[in-house]
């Protein structure tokens, strides 16, 4: 991803952050131009950014179904491949295979969920960020706006109007 210039504002207060985002959005800054920071999942911010449903759930569903299918298919196939009778039970002992199928459902579901999360939220990213406020993980909220020229000034003025505790310009990965 190429470096984008922009401006980063740190806030001490949640409401000012939210209002700033809403105002920026009204000013026509695209969702993709904005990055909000928070120390915990803040649904006001998410709401302000206007998020819809996360695609992660699709990953979960597909993974889980794959697991179920694998569970049944594999157990059945391996039993037929070299048929050995145990305890006078049928070669295909479906009830027993349900357990395997269930466990694989959960396993595959969980793993693909994590995969989905990483891909969607572009993790892991080991490149150290240029503009980032360590306080974000502690108490502060933040907004980074991708902009330059006139738009940059406009963004700055909007942000300043919400009394940020800090304001920095820089590039962001």
């Amino acid at each position, binding site marked *: 991803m190429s470096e984008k210039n922009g401006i980063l504002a740190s806030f*001490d*207060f*949640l*409401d*000012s952050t939210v*209002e700033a985002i809403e105002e920026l959005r009204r000013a026509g800054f695209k969702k993709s131009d*904005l*990055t*909000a*920071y*928070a*120390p*915990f*999942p*803040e649904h006001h*911010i*998410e709401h302000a*950014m206007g998020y819809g449903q*996360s695609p*992660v*759930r699709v990953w*979960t569903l597909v993974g*889980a179904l794959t697991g179920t299918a694998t569970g049944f298919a*594999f157990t059945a196939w*391996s039993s037929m*491949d*070299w048929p*050995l009778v*145990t305890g006078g*039970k049928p070669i295909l*002992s479906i009830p*027993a*295979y349900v*357990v*395997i199928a*269930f*466990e*694989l459902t*959960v*396993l595959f579901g*969980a*793993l693909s*969920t*994590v995969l*989905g*999360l990483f891909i*969607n*939220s*572009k*993790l*892991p990213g*080991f490149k150290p*960020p240029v503009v980032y406020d*360590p*306080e*974000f*993980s*502690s*108490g502060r909220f933040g907004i980074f706006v991708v902009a330059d020229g006139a738009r940059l000034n406009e963004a700055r003025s909007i942000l300043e109007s919400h*009394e940020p505790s800090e304001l920095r310009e820089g590039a962001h990965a």
Partner: protein
Amino acid sequence: MASLTESQKRGALTHPDVSHYSEVNRDVLAMLSTPGKGWWALFGIAVLGVGLFFGSWFYQIYRGIGVSGLTSPVGWGAYITTFVFWVGIAHSGTLISAILFLFRAPWRQSVYRAAEAMTVFAVMTAGLFPLIHVGRVWNAYWLIPYPNQRFLWPNFRSPLVWDVFAVTTYFTVSAVFFYLGTIPDVAAARDQATGLRKKLYSFLAMGWQGTDREWHHFGKAYIFLAALATPLVLSVHSVVSWDFAVGIVPGWHATVFAPYFVAGAIFSGVAMVITLAVPLRKVFGLEAYLTTKHFDALAKLVLLTSLIVFYAYLTEFFMAWYSGEPPERQVFWNRLFGHYWWATWIMLVCNGMIPIMLWFKRVRHSIPALFVISIFINIGMWFERYVIIVTSLSHEYEPFAWGVYRPSMVEMGILIGSFCWFGFWFLLFTRLLPPVAIAELKEVLPAPRRGKKAQEVEA
């Protein structure tokens, strides 16, 4: 815009003396600072115990499984007992983190991280016991389905293969769940740490920044994982219980086993959470985060599960009598008055009688009392499995083949060692990862607001 959410109000009440987010970071991350004498002492004991653990195990592998007290007809003993015990311990972790998360229980935030860690390490411990138990551990990998030149596959009708799948799945999922939850907090640690720790945390945090996108997907993923973990935790101990219930051994072959075992698992697990949380709270001064309210809630959970478990005991005995089958009756009579009567009575007293005290609020609010009770419950639950396994096997269908089993020193060494092995990892955890969930605690704290709005809140 939005005033305080419900959970935040309650959070404010749960943690009255925490006023700002940064205090959370400060308090929690303070735990990661250089350990004191007490920690080193415990850690030293743990390391010795781990030595005992593997020492005994390797001795057994070298001499043969015969060094255990196991015999015919009692082919399963202390090892499987301890396996089930640890799997049970694991369960409360997932319960508290996943199930209570789905039910939005307000008090889980401060305990769930420790509980999850407990889950992961408990499963790690439990997972070793089947290996310790088998006579030819060097062939144990045959239980894993992998393509081989022999064209052989495991027998998917065997509960032991179910176990392999259930336990490995459980370990993977709970480990992932645990790790995922720590990422934002590790990031927090990263932002304050320096030097080697910084490198470590930067790696573990995987570049987490707390952006809106990250939080958005994180939240969803977390819910789905919780939703998957919930049935999983129920299935795992059900599968473990089927190791017995699928067998035809009188005293094992009962339909009640799955729910009975799950309840027992949660019972013992929550007790273990208390056992761990009390010292944790003391050592790290977490009184602000682990309040009597939390312990009260845990105690109530213990009480509930204790009642379920005790009911299951009664059901077992009743069904045995009601079945009218001589072998079935014999086994349960033998439990109460036979060679292993003492184990049975320890079980009944520790799991059935002692928890009755939790009906009283004063007991639930006295941390020392809870600590003592939780210890008794841990003992009682170990013996529950011992009773189920050993007494049943020792008095089966064939009277002429009845026999008794006495655990050997090696088995005792491995049992004690397993606790140290568990403690070893848990102690490391308290020093390396934030033992209390930073980010989630903040969810239940009042968000900082500007000027007048903030005052409105106070008013």
